[in-house]
């Protein structure tokens, strides 16, 4: 299976930025009222901001020119009133937007997480956890800024530009030209900076994701790193990934900071043309000073939104790439699909059939792991899977639990095709235990209840007792309520708890993939007794290396060369004197050496 690492950038499907934007905006649909209200407040606020300079003009050209102090005070008071209106409107829309954007982000993150849970194991097996986390946490957070920017920056600033243009044209068309004259220069240079910048920001995100993956792995693998004195090389590699983040950032800002030059220059040229026109063309006199002041205000009002939009766009390109990564995650289809009208799996007997199964991993379709495997298991039988490491024993377990689908062929339980039934009914009937038993941080009891949340205390205690786990639990400070985590128990203890967890879940078909490998023999003996009752009346598949486990099987399958190489009872296989017999004897060589 091809696996992505922290060294490679993940491929992100190319989607158009427009689609990404439209999709982002579509999230607002559920908040129509709030959004409309916020937009109205924003536009009102913008209009007031745009009208303010005309009041200063009035103050200068009319009130001051006429020496009318009362008029001046009146004008200023009106302006102050408008200032307060701006305050209230801004506060209002900011609060509305806060609710809307935070809620949307909450929803998207929830949606993304829930979606992740539906993806097949293949998705998780083929990329580092750190990279998935990077999308779920960082990229979704960026989306929030994107929303806020879209609404709180884009709309008011566009409105402001339009309002300012209209007012300027009404006041004095000639002077307005001074502001517009620089637009072509500005637009071209902005476009060049932005378009080129997009790739840089994308690159920056990727490097961040790589760094996330690397640090995550280093933190989880710290014990190995320290045991092999590999701190130095890990740090060097870490430095490298961090340096890449740094370099890609510097590269991106080197270009996008050019915006400052463009804006300052445009502003300077604008003022120059304004006074040029005023003096040389219109030959304005003392009576127009107020108008000029107002115009100067408008020119800066005109530049302010452009500057804000440019800066926002800068961030925006960055966030669009984040959005793309989030949407890609949301759009990833599970390679395992539940049928639209999937039925509930009903298991009465527990008959299992594998019919002409071929299997290869999705990204390596040419490398067959299993070829034309057919296997019919009678209800209640215990099947042991043996064979060299990597021969496909775990694959058989994965197929029956439908962690993966076969490339061709069917898997049937009680004559029901498992690809046609609901995943939840399948998994509640098929219990899987692997060698790396995963415990969640929480109490022992929470972990035990994981497979059957409504199990009674009796059921729990009964299961623990059967596995001899009660002693261990009693020794814990808070008994069943003691907190455990992946790190706090030994592998063997984890396997015991996991075994009890499966026992409580009470599945009809049991798949044990090296489920007891880390449990010591004496404990296992105890466990075996519990297992015996557990397996009674259930169909079970056991991958194990312990002879004592294998010999008890009703049928032993030797998996080798993409299929079943030998099968039969322990006795039959020994008589056959083939692979199994050789395997079995090798164990006894040990004894012979005495």
């Amino acid at each position, binding site marked *: *299976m091809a696996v992505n*690492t922290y060294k490679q950038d993940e491929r992100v499907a190319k989607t158009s930025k427009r689609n990404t934007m439209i999709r982002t905006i579509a999230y607002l649909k559920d908040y129509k009222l709030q959004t409309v209200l916020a937009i109205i407040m924003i536009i009102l606020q913008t209009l007031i901001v745009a009208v303010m300079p005309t009041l200063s003009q009035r103050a200068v050209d009319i009130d*001051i020119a006429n*020496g009318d102090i009362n008029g*001046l005070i009146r004008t200023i008071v009106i302006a102050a009133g408008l200032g307060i209106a*701006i305050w209230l409107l801004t*506060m209002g829309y*900011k609060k509305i937007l806060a609710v809307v954007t935070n809620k949307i982000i909450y929803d998207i*993150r929830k949606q993304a997480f829930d979606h*992740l*849970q539906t993806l097949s*194991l293949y998705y*998780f097996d083929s990329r*580092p956890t750190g990279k*998935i*986390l990077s999308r779920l*946490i960082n990229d979704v*957070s960026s989306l*929030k800024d994107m929303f806020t920017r879209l609404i709180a920056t884009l709309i008011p600033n566009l409105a402001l530009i339009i309002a300012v243009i209209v007012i300027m044209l009404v006041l004095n068309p000639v002077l307005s030209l001074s502001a517009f004259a620089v637009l072509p220069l500005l637009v071209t240079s902005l476009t060049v900076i932005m378009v080129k910048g997009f790739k840089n920001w994308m690159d920056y995100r990727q490097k*961040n994701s790589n760094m996330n993956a690397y*640090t*995550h*792995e*280093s933190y*989880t693998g*710290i014990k190995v*790193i320290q045991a092999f004195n590999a701190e130095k090389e*890990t740090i060097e590699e870490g430095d490298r990934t*961090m340096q890449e*983040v740094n370099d890609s*950032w510097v590269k991106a800002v080197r270009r996008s900071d050019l915006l*400052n*030059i463009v804006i300052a*220059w445009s502003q300077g040229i604008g*003022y120059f043309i304004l006074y040029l026109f005023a*003096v040389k063309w219109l030959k304005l*006199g003392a009576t127009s*000073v107020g108008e000029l002041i107002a115009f100067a205000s408008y020119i*800066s009002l005109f530049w302010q939104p452009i500057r804000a939009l440019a800066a926002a766009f800068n961030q925006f390109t960055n966030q669009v790439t984040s959005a793309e990564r989030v949407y890609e995650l949301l759009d990833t289809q599970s390679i395992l699909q539940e049928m639209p009208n999937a039925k509930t799996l009903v298991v009465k007997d527990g008959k299992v059939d594998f019919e002409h199964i071929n299997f290869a991993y999705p990204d390596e379709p040419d490398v067959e792991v299993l070829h034309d495997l057919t296997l019919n298991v009678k209800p209640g039988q215990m099947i042991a899977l043996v*064979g060299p*490491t990597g021969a496909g024993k775990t694959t058989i377990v994965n197929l029956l639990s439908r962690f993966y689908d076969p490339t061709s062929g069917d898997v049937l339980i009680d004559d029901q095709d498992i690809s046609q039934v609901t995943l*939840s009914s399948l998994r*509640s009937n098929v219990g*899987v235990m692997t060698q*790396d*038993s995963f415990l969640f941080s929480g109490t022992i009891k929470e972990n035990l209840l994981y497979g059957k949340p409504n199990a009674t205390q009796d059921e729990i205690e009964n299961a623990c007792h059967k596995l001899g786990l009660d002693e261990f639990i009693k020794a814990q400070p808070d008994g069943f309520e003691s907190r455990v985590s992946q790190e706090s128990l030994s592998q*063997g203890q984890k396997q*015991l708890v996991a075994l009890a*967890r499966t026992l409580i879940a009470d599945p009809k078909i049991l798949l044990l993939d*090296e489920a007891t*490998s*880390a449990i*010591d*023999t004496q404990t296992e003996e105890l466990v075996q007794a519990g297992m015996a009752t557990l397996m009674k009346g259930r169909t079970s598949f056991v991958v194990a290396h*312990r002879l*004592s486990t294998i010999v008890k099987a009703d049928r032993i399958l030797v998996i080798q060369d993409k299929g079943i190489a030998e099968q039969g009872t*322990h006795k039959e296989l020994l008589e056959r004197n083939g692979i199994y017999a050789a*395997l079995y004897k*090798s164990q*006894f060589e040990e004894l012979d050496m005495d």
Partner: protein
Amino acid sequence: MRRIIKYAARQWKLYLTSAIGLVAGVYFSAMGPQYIQRIIDTCIVAGNGSAFFVLAIPLLASYLITGVFKYIQEFASDCISAAMQNCMRRDTFRSIMAQDQYFFRENNPGELMSRTKQDIETVGFSTGFIFIFFVEIIVHVIYMTYCLVRINTASAIAALVIMPVIAVLAILSEPKGVKLSDQRSDDIADMNQSATESLSGIRTVKAFGREKTESERFDRHNRMFYKHSLQLDYLWANWITPMDALARIMLLLAILVSGIQVIAGKMTLGQLTAVTQYTSELSWPMMEIGWLLTEIASAKASLKKINKILDAKPLIKDGPKHLEKPCGELEFDHVTLDVSGKRILDDVSFDLKEGKSLGIMGATGSGKSTIANLAMRFIDPSSGAVLTNGIDLRDLDLYSARSSKAIVTQDIFLFSDTINSNLDKGQKGQILQEILEQSARDAAAHDFISKLSDGYDTVIGEKGVGLSGGQKQRVSIARALASGRPLLIFDDATSALDMETEKMVQKAIRKHGKITMMIIAHRISAVRDADEIIILDHGRIAERGTHDQLMALKGSYYHTYMTQYPDDAPESMDANEAVGIQESGVQEAR
């Protein structure tokens, strides 16, 4: 704070560049209004159009130059953000790498990731871009105030009375912002951790069909994050918008006061224009203060968390002595270990001489892995000592303490990297390819590795997904062998291997002869050839001796043996008989 200054001092060149850009930028941008004032007074009010270009060209030039300096300032400040982040991140990563197991028990990977990513980003941004911007605002405000005062004191005072009010608002709201930012960054860490756990345990989640539970678990943190984010946004909406309004009122006050003076004939119209220009130059920084505040507040919260990591002192640290030559000898001298009041190991002593082997067996939870952890100095004993070559491990630097031992643990961790890079962990690129391959052969891993698409250059996944349990175990055994360290510690390392492979591996290792081995196992087959076997029971050594001695003792070892080889009868028995007995045993069991 002192730490930030130390980091910042290293970037003094960038700070200086940025400062030069800043001061020059402010200076030149302040020139603009002066020329505008003169254009209005000379060309418009006095009607002297011929003087226009003399005044207008410097006006244009001042803006062009301002642009260049602004770029220098901003680019340098962005570089500071990046450089500060980079340095802090490196140091934090180094600090984390040097921490001991106690630290990792308290700080889970998700949380640590949050610290190295978001928190450092926030702090870096604040020390670079935000800090420079803050300085710019101060310089700008001071200079503009000076210009304003020069024109007309009364107008200046009218404008300036507003500023202290804004400052008070800022000072009052900041601590609340820090508190909420702090909670929010904890929420992110919690989300990170919760998601990490669900994703790492995805197989279990799916096996039990408990996707919903995981979603609910994540949802709790997501909800908290939502709550605190919203509160924070509300806080800023409440406190920042009035600052913005005050900045606008500032401009109005200036016009009012100047207007009265113009009417009174104490000011020219040109001066009035300049006053409004300067005042509006003063008002935009006031409008930015709110935003700065939010950034500074969250940086403060983040810095606190980073400091906690940087200040964490590992309990397990370097001793003064250095071991020149690796030494396979290992001695436990009356080692006792208590963890939170519980005795894990009780007076364990043994002496593992070079070239010898020690087997350790015992029930689940009897303290076997603890011995391996003590030997690796992942933990220190409560009393007694672990010695190598007669030197207490605590007196050695960590490198020496560990460099003699290669450990293969029960929970195998492989890195998402090539097989080769996994094999030469700790000695990157320093081990000959032949040795790597020989080690893989000895670990019975060569065959399957050669069959992989890119052989030894095949990338394997995090936690070695893509390989089966047994294959992972073989790679991790090969890794230990390739390290060439004299003492091998197998902590239940062969449990996922089939008997045949286990035997092959053992044979291959024995071939090396000189290797010292500590084997922790459940299978008799793994330890029976050891020079000494210890049976642990609740942290105490219950039985010890060679295989034969222990068999003769007829204690717990003997009992385990009988369970694992139920058909074992007199040694001379041939295979056929063995099978017969085996079968009857099986029938009984049913």
